[in-house]
């Protein structure tokens, strides 16, 4: 298992280099201009000077290698310096600078990570908590009214996009009922019970919108996997031994059915870090997804590149984790 992991990690390096270069080319060759969003009153000569000062006009390969050097060497050093206080990092000029804010991209990411982890992370957990029981009961009582209802709701959650459910929730719960705020207050700090309630109120709508979407997906996997196992011989054996239905379903069937579901959950974890572009935009949560979409809109190549690269790293990493986890959970699978 260890050699397998090490081999996979080493293989990840050329993969990531390739991915980063492809992302860079896509972003760079797409017709985007950091000065496009400026008012037309700013004359072309000034725009040219701005582009020049941002380094947009350098050759593409120079820009790529410069970025790569900053990403794999300077930024980790800054990270180490930030954590340990050792003075290892070079001058602050050598960091990845966002075109929009002219500040280090990593600082922007760090600033936004907590909101994304809270909102998207909680919605993921909520989604799992809702999905597992629905999947189990739906499979155990296949074609019952509960199964039909569960199927209907999960199809709805899966097929209705979050930009629709998000706005629908706002219109119902914020505008008509006035229960929750429609704009997420990112400066809110939880200090006591009352402020916790405020936080709960503002987080509940984005969490439920995303949770519904996640739950739909996972509950379908759970149901399918349960159905596969319920008809197996070992289940009949367990029942024949005189075990109670509770033990048969929740111990024997559930444990075996969870193996593929855990893999699916692990594979989707990078999406939690990636944030939810649409939901974050609808509820004005300043997360990673919002950072990415604003950066794309304003032609902010360093930010788009860095955020996408971090996603790529997470996806490669969690693929590996899912594979390893599979081997841990299922003794039949061995990599060595």
């Amino acid at each position, binding site marked *: 298992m260890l050699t397998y992991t090490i081999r996979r990690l080493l293989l990840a390096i050329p993969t990531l280099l390739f991915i980063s270069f492809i992302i860079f080319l896509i972003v760079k060759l797409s017709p*985007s201009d950091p000065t496009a969003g400026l008012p037309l*009153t700013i004359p072309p000569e000034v725009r040219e000077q701005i582009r020049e000062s941002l380094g947009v006009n350098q050759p593409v390969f120079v820009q790529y290698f410069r970025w790569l050097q900053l990403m794999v060497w300077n930024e980790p050093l800054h990270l180490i310096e930030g954590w340990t206080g050792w003075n290892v990092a070079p001058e602050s000029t050598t960091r990845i600078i966002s075109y929009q804010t002219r500040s280090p991209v990593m600082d922007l990411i760090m*600033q936004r990570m907590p909101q994304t982890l809270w909102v998207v992370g909680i919605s993921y957990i909520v989604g799992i908590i809702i999905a597992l029981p629905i999947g189990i009961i739906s499979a155990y009582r296949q074609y019952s009214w509960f199964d039909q209802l569960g199927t209907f709701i999960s199809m709805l959650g899966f097929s209705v996009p979050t930009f629709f459910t998000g706005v629908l929730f706002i219109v119902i719960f914020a*505008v008509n009922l006035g229960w929750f705020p429609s704009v997420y207050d990112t400066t809110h700090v939880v200090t006591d019970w009352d402020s916790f309630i405020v936080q709960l109120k503002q987080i509940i709508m984005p969490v439920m919108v995303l949770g519904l979407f996640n739950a739909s997906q996972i509950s379908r996997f759970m149901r399918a996997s349960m159905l596969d196992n319920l008809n197996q011989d070992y289940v009949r054996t367990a029942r024949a031994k005189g075990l109670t239905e509770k033990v048969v379903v929740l111990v024997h069937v559930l444990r075996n059915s969870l193996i593929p579901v855990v893999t699916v959950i692990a594979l989707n974890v990078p999406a939690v870090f990636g944030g939810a572009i649409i939901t974050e935009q609808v509820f004005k949560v300043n997360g990673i997804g919002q950072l990415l979409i604003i950066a794309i809109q304003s032609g902010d190549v360093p930010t788009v590149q860095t955020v996408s690269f971090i996603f790529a790293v997470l996806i490669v990493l969690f693929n590996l984790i899912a594979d390893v986890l599979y081997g841990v959970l299922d003794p039949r699978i061995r990599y060595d």
Partner: protein
Amino acid sequence: MNSKTLLLGAAAAFMLSPVAAMAERGSSGHLNIIYWQAPSTLNPYLSGGTKEVESASLVLESFARFDDTGTMVPWLAADIPTVENGGVSEDLTQITWTIADGITWSDGTPLTAADAVFTWEYCTHPEGGCAQASYFDGVESVVAVDDMTVQINFNAPKPFPYTAFVGSESPIIQAAQFAECLGARAPECTDANFGPIGTGPFVVTDFRPNDVIEFEANQNFRYPDRPYFATVTFKGGGDAAAAARSVLETGEFDYAWNLQIDPTILAQMEAQGNGTVVTAFGTSVERLHLNQTNPDPALGDLRSTVEGGPHPFLTDPIIGQAMSMAIDRALLVEVGYGAGGQPTCNVLPAPELYASTANDDCLVQDIAGANALLDEAGYVDTNGDGIREANGIPLSVLYQTSTNAVRQDTQALVKQWWSEIGIDAELRNIDASVFFGGDPASPDTFQKFYADVEMYTNNFAGVDPEAYMANWRCSEIPGPDTQWQGSNIQRFCMEEYDALVDEMATTADLQERGRLAREMNDMIIQSYSIIPLIHRGGVSAHANSLEGIRMSDWDSELWNIMDWRRAE
């Protein structure tokens, strides 16, 4: 600018103070503002975007500003320098500003002439990429005569010298704070860029790029009773409809900016009675540009260039006139703009002094007249396909604009009207970041104009149209030799026009400048190389409990935020 209007403006500014004198600083509590595009930095010299300029205007100020009528009012300066009061030299090459007494930065240190000199050096540094560099065009030097006097020397006579340090786009930054941030080092100063020290009514307490800014009242502000709000939250993000909703429907916010949404939806939201929609008209005009050069793809690299030859039919003003007559501008306003638009027949619609009335016939749609005009000129449909021909070439145009719901509605309506006069239009829309992106390698930019007709909005900052009217000189025509840079998008070229531009550059008398500007406007309009459609205003909304808002399109919308207060 004549001194009488200036004095009146100044008087008006002072008149406001007694009304509000009962309230004290901070007595109105907390103010929530939402801009659906979030500010990326608070240094307007590093980003020319409206969102950055307006959010920074709570903190950074300039010598003079424009009020809601477009009148200049002294702000950090004691008065407005003019030739009459000796502030502007007779030969128009020098302007001298005197800083008003008792102005300090929010850190308590006094504002001096050295700060203005530093600001000039900061923005004109060759490696800085300053977004507002055009405000310092023609400035030879900025000199601190003494602590309170700033002298700006121009390298040629400048009939309208109120550019540098006037309005929200060229404010004065503190020399002490930005001293280490010149040129290429500008991005290193993240703390300064995100939290500039200013002379304005508020100071930054927390800045989160592209998200939210927290302000609190500046305790060293020069008016002891203002600002009335103690703290301000300036939230960014989302979209225009959501911003409108948060003010007009849920009441979470007090002020929302730039609400260009479907006018019927906005009216429905306003009808709920929580807030009020306000508009202000500046100089923005949604217009059609008619390509005067040939965009035929067969020309290859010579497409849409002067060398490629004139357009096969759009250079004839008769055709342009018919196209203009066929358009019902009032309906376009009703469908797409509501309170935020007015029909216009001028490319230079304001200020009043410069607005021509010679072209107002276009306000009424006249399809029959347009048909008659084309018939008379001999542009008739010879092959019976419903499209007229000019010398055998069908009057068929490619009509492009940026992707935007209102613009696509407008395109569809205009196409319909043109089909009624025998002109066929193929519609195309291009993502705004590409269309306005100016990438010389892209064929889809508005500068390249690989189409017959294109539509967008342009305007000018401030109140003086001299630089704006100079956009349409022959030498400003974009082409491959200038990397497609240039502001004469429709490729209009007339010697008489260039002569008027030169004349305006040496004319100081305001009335005379007005006459010249109107004449240039009429020349362009009557060439029908530009067909103006809508005079567009800024649309914002504020809660009914908010008082003191005097929305201006001539300066930052938040220019008088120190006077805003909560109704009792």
